[in-house]
């Protein structure tokens, strides 16, 4: 995890003045203050009056010479006298152990044995001392290691001294080893080593820029780089964020929320939910989204997007991956509404309406000689695409239970496609995919260092295709996955998965089932 501060010198002065007022857990001047010393060290006991919160006073105990952080020992919501009394008791007990106590203060920036190391980061907000507080932060001593931090940091406000822009490098990487048995032939493969760096830039609490790339090596040893998403999130309101750019589709759950391998409980996407499936992957456009708190903990969520939408795929199916340009002037509208009666239970419904436009010639194959002139000359047409889906997730304690269903229809269309002779008519296409998945984390039943890290998981799903034989042959399947995760850390996992696939629309004579064993290491950072 790395991050870097972007200097914003011009705003430093402004920040300094506003941060004192707005961003600091201000504590008013000490009401009573004692310094207790021995030959070599000073401690201070101060009764302070917090600027916020319900307490009328707190007793602050500081041991700057001993490398100990500051502590609030007592507080009272009613009486200043309580804090004063406690402070005096502490003074008495220190005196009894050989300290020499007087009323007064130790300098806030007194040499401290405690360097506050925040790795090139500005010191944590600090300063309980009136003397320092009146001093503009910008002029606070550069040797930040001389400051003390009151116990407990700050309630959230942007960190004082934090620049307006922060950034964060995140993402994930994985490597997968696959043993496959198809029709008696066994193959082994290191497949799909991937590295997906993500970048997040935040400007105050107004805008977040996020982008993620996928870098992988394909079968020919070439490196593929793909842009997964690149979007600006503009925080309009407590319940509304405007997203513009290329974003992951909000339709369903898997693509937007679960596809990173450190999140996914199994080694790959459910049938129909990966590339060339029915679940939309990404789109280019604008999206409004957010959540609304209902009562104590129920939340209603929404996401509605307008984008370029799907286009016709090479095989004549529907491709749901973002493209810079549109194939027609009709935008697609898609979205999802979700409801969480409790934080651990979510049900949702998704939809997408759009158009795809037929093509004259299948891209990439236009160099092929056309053997014969097409008997009937057809013009490419547009066709409506409609998709709906339902999903549910139950994620309480050790349980992680998920279900998703998606259904898409594309009206009949005249288009060219892989293997077509010019433009041909394709009938209505219907795609359906669903899966159900259950995982259980053993930490619920044991605190054993090793055993608690295991999580067995089972998933069953189907992908059905009707109206496009080529796609059906290739992709229609029923799939059972049984896996075991071993969580090395909350975002690092080693897993083994057995996978049984039945291809339901293979031609007679073609292998119609495959058994695979996948070993995967996934790392989210």
């Amino acid at each position, binding site marked *: 995890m790395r991050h870097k501060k972007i200097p914003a010198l011009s705003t430093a002065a402004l920040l300094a003045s506003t941060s004192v007022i707005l961003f600091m857990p201000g504590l008013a001047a000490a009401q009573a203050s004692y310094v207790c010393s021995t030959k070599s060290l000073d401690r201070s006991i101060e009764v302070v009056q917090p600027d916020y919160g319900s307490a009328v006073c707190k007793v602050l105990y500081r041991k700057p010479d001993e490398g100990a952080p500051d502590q609030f020992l007592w507080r009272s919501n009613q009486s200043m006298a309580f804090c004063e009394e406690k402070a005096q008791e502490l003074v008495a007990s220190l005196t009894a152990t050989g300290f020499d106590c007087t009323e007064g203060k130790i300098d806030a920036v007194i040499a401290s044995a405690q360097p506050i190391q925040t790795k090139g980061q500005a010191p944590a907000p600090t300063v309980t001392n009136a003397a320092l507080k009146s001093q503009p932060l910008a002029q606070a001593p550069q040797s930040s290691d001389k400051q003390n931090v009151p116990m407990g940091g700050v309630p959230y406000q942007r960190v004082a001294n934090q620049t307006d822009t922060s950034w964060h490098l995140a993402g994930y990487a994985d490597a997968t080893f696959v043993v496959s048995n198809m029709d008696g032939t066994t193959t082994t493969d290191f497949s799909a080593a991937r590295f997906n760096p993500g970048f997040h830039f935040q400007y105050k609490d107004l805008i977040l820029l996020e982008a993620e790339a996928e870098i992988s090596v394909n079968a020919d040893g070439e490196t593929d780089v793909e842009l997964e998403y690149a979007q600006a999130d503009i925080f309009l*309101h407590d319940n509304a964020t405007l997203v513009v750019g290329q974003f992951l589709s909000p339709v369903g759950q898997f693509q937007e929320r679960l596809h990173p391998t450190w999140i996914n409980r199994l080694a790959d996407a459910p049938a129909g939910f990966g590339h060339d499936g029915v679940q939309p992957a990404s789109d280019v456009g604008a999206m409004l989204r957010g959540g609304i*708190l209902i009562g104590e903990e129920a939340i209603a969520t929404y996401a*509605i997007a307008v984008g370029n939408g799907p286009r016709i795929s090479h095989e004549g199916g529907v491709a749901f991956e973002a493209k810079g340009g549109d194939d027609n002037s009709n935008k697609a509208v898609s979205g999802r509404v979700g409801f969480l009666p409790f934080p651990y239970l979510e049900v949702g419904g998704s939809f997408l309406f759009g158009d795809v436009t037929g093509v004259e010639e299948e891209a990439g194959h236009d160099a092929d000689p056309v053997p014969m002139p097409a008997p009937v000359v057809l013009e490419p047409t547009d066709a409506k695409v409609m998709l709906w889906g339902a999903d549910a997730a139950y994620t309480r304690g050790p349980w992680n239970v998920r279900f998703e269903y998606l259904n898409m229809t594309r009206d009949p269309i005249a288009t060219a496609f892989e293997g077509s002779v010019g433009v041909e008519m394709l009938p209505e296409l219907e795609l359906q995919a669903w899966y159900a998945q259950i995982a259980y984390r053993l930490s619920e039943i044991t605190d054993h260092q090793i055993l608690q890290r295991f999580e067995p998981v089972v998933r069953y799903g189907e992908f059905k295709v009707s109206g496009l034989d080529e796609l059906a042959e290739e992709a229609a399947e029923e799939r059972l996955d049984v896996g075991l995760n071993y969580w090395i850390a909350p975002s690092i996992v080693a897993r083994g998965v057995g996978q049984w696939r039945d291809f339901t629309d293979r031609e007679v004579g073609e292998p119609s089932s495959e058994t695979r064993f996948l070993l995967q290491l996934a790392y989210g950072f």
Partner: protein
Amino acid sequence: MKKLLLILTGSALLAAGAVLTQTMAQSTEPGANKAPAASDGGAAAARGAKAWANHCSRCHNLRSPSELNAELWDVSVQHMRVRANLPGSVADDIKVFLMSSAMAEKQYSSAPPQRAATASFAYLAPGDVVHGKEIFSQTCIACHGADGKGTIPGVPDLTAADGRLVNPDDLLLTNIIKGYQSEGSLMAMPPMGGNPDLTEQDMADVLAYMRKEYGIAPGK
């Protein structure tokens, strides 16, 4: 099926409309753009700890509060607010919790090891069980659960007769006051449960409460 689609779009649009009008109404209120006042750090951290345990485990495992520093949590929670469609107020509470946990953590872990690992807390008053229960059910419950058995991978069962509570008070207090993560542990115990408003005395109170509730006295 068409009807269902219509209902879905309809409700999404309605929600969007409601939100937009609210946005507009809000932004015309005087002072609507002021930064939120840091008014209730303690309560927000307690709410935040619960919201963190509840919401941040919905898609992926909870990541330890010790994993990022305060500034990175700021960015990351903002990122997750969008992904998870969290209301801003909920995300802000979670930030209070994570940022105060991370900040306090940094501050402690950087202290040079010049003192014995276990501090002495003899100067604290004997724990007040009633007050301790209150603290437990506001803050500690998020990870340790109402029954103390732990709700998150990596959180130990505090009720086990041979569990953590057999350790002496001073050691336990040192750990919960300064925060710690034992070797190879999946999750950190944040200093004072990540609540910046709690005091050392509060910790002595909760400890007394836990000892009484689970009936575990310090071992020999």
